[in-house]
């Protein structure tokens, strides 16, 4: 069986996989990182999004063997070791941007990549367009868009603390 060596959330792993093993299967089944979810089989829903070398990628359509030497970050690797949430995680909670939570890990990973690649700041319309690869069935996206808009202010250092949601 082929071997793949990769770094996941800062920790190096060498894992034996079948050639057909997908990255998401490696994460969920071999490394027990079950925060990354599978919501479809056709690369539509984005519940499986992780970062590979800093880019958001759908791990359900990435073969594990393609990740030799890669740096992978999953939802489990976002918070600081002391438990402090990433500003995007914090914003999702503050703005009630999740309900059942199943799409949330992929949504958060996509949102972080979207914001990082757009330091100029994103309008609501641009955020909606940027989320095309992620499906949520619970929220109607309204609060997800608000959370991302608020998080980008913190991520780009324009605000020190997250703006509170209106009561």
């Amino acid at each position: 069986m082929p071997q793949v060596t990769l770094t996941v959330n800062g920790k190096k792993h060498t894992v034996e996989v079948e050639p057909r093993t997908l990255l998401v299967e490696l994460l969920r089944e071999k490394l027990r990182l079950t925060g990354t979810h599978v919501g479809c089989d056709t690369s539509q829903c984005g519940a499986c999004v992780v970062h590979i070398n800093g880019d958001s990628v759908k791990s359900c359509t990435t073969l594990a063997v393609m990740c030799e030497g890669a740096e992978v970050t999953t939802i489990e690797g976002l918070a600081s070791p002391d438990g402090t949430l990433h500003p995007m995680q914090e914003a999702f909670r503050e703005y009630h941007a999740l309900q059942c939570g199943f799409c949330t890990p992929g949504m958060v990973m996509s949102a972080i990549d979207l914001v990082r690649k757009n330091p100029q700041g994103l309008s609501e319309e641009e955020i909606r367009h940027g989320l095309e690869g992620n499906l949520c069935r619970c929220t109607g996206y309204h609060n997800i868009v608000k959370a991302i808009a608020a998080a980008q202010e913190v991520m780009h250092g324009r605000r020190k603390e997250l703006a509170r949601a209106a009561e």
Partner: protein
Amino acid sequence: MNVVTPFEGIGASVRRKEDLRFLSGRGQYTDDLNRQGQTWAHILRSPHPHARIRGIDTRAASAMPGVLAVFTGKDMAEAGVGGLPCGWLIHNKDGSPMAEPPHPVLAVDKVRHVGDPVAVVVAETRAQARDAAEAIAVDYEVLPAAATMAQALAPGAPQLHEGAPGNLCYDWHIGDKAVVDAAFARAHKVATLELVNNRLVPNAMEPRAAIGEYDRGTGDYTLWTTSQNPHVIRLLMGANVLHIPESRLRVIAPDVGGGFGSKIYHYAEEAIVTWASGRVERPVKWTADRVESFMSDAHGRDHVTKAELALDQDGKILALRVSTLANMGAYLSTFAPCIPTYLYATLLAGVYTTPAIYCEVKAVFTNTVPVDAYRGAGRPEATYLLERLMDVAAAETGIDRIELRRRNFIRPDQFPYQTPVALQYDSGNYHATLDQALQAADWAGFEARRAEAKRRGRLRGIGVSTYIEACGIAPSAVVGSLGARAGLYEVGTIRVHPTGSVTVLTGAHSHGQGHETTFAQLVADKLGVPVAQVEVVHGDTGKVPFGMGTYGSRSLAVGGSAMMKAMDKIIAKGKRIAAHLMEASVEDIEFERGEFRVAGTDKKKTLTEISVAAYVPHNYPIEELEPGLEETAFYDPKNFTFPAGCHVAEVEIDPETGRTQVVNFTAVDDVGRVINPMIVEGQVQGGVAQGIGQALLERCVYDENGQLLSGSMMDYTMPRADDLPPVGVATHTTLCTHNPLGVKGCGEVGAIGSPPAVINAVVDALKEYGVRHVEMPATPERIWQIINANRPRMAAE
């Protein structure tokens, strides 16, 4: 113990307790769980809509690497496994019971829809199970299929079931036909509309999954499943399918990633993995892939209806006459028969004083996936019909569509209001929600926006819907008389621990609704315990005494009421303990915000002091009172609750492409008392998104042979972020009069009120094309066809 700040109680937008685990990847959904020694099941499904099974050869598959067992329907039937039960019996017009054909767990002699399960492979790994399933040879004799209701009802149609001649499940009616016909005979105007309520696939983001585990030592079974109601699954599967007593069967529904109705039902796969785990004596896990979900999760809606509204010369409604065909799919799913009857036809009065209503419903078997409740369940179908018909009636009478609604509203002074279709509404103020919505949506300023859009080459339209729904389905005695085979109460246990923290055990189930927070707020409000010290336990028959689960927006109205009752018992017992400790009479003890006080004195005991005394009963009225501080209540509702409201949609259509964009959406809902405004707003927004999806994007399509064409997320249009507008939500509260919280329910209003608002706006945008009705979903193609079919005529005029 700290006295709780008032901001955590009823009415506070407390941030959700459950979010931390979901946001950090530590949720525990069924597929995230793995059991020691676990095996995998793969289910082989029919590729044919309708076929006879002449034989199944499993020899090659059984010899494949890693395979532990292959089972067919014959194996399960021979082992005494029963069929999947239906939970509701409907009677025909003539009083005879509906056709209720068998629903085998695995098909035995015939397959009846694409996706019908035929055999199961149990193997060491998921890939091995899947590979081996490919090697099963099924000898099918393909039969002609009835893909649509029209095909199924045609003379000489292929027959799905021996016990359902003509593919008819039932022919049911409600209302007084003679009175309605007489009203039509004297009507000044009759508005008629034929419409289709499009078939939808619920598509919760988490695909269904199940793990069965058999304990060789005790003979007990445990099932982990993606369910909205684990106790109901235990009851149905234990009693009807596998014949396992409740005491030997534990059902756990852990974190569940959305349901919207599709995870209410007892599905074949739950019985398959549970039974197979006993056969192979190892845990058996199954997780659907999305394509499998499309062909095995119950679908929603799928009505074809003709509706007529009789009006007098002042625009007052005289009567409503409705005839509906409702698709059941190939088998009866758990609650399927009650959806197009008691959850649909009983809502046809809407918010109007219609004095006479007659509705007949034929439920039809077709070679398609079973159809059951999907968010709203019957009520969206009733609302869509009524609110489209009101707009058609307005156009045909020349009365303004808002004015026509106002003239026919039930007035606030008319409650309780008895409709001619069985329901008695307890409260509401339809004028208020309408006025508030029109104001918020700037209805008065719309024509200016239409003109501005026209200058940009866009067609702009505005639409309104004023809706009602019935939630918290009950009382048990009433639903029993209507054919329900279960009670519809809820159970709540309040366990005050010795140190004063509280565990709430509820029979309701949270799969996105935020119960862990909302229910904790009830405890904070009533017992004065901080939200952080209240744990809500749900979804485990091994922990929660009993329950009916979550659907029909019932959790707070029914489940919350049970908790309130249990807390009343806690306070009553606490008062007796407090009276003993403070040497006062029980009648003099008052309880407020976590403290028991002797009236008119400064003597007091905190809830924690009382709970310590209850669990360490050194100084305790032990002769008259048991130790401990835990109470359980069963709450059986006195009536349905009746959320209502007004939704306003504003759309713009690009006439070149036919694409419709919802540019504004305003919802003003009366959901009764609001416990957590943030959560209510989120529930409404999510419901509206699904309603806009139905109106503009979503449609489950079968071809004329019964092949499922929209069988993946590449073919079925799920609403994406840039398909949807921001959704403005407000509430206007009238209290429910018959439950202790005054709550009505908020989970389904969004999906009920929004589709007609959107289609009314689309029709309004297209009015210069002479359009009277547009079917859902109003796709770009459909709109483009309408515009182009009417263009030559417009040019000629």
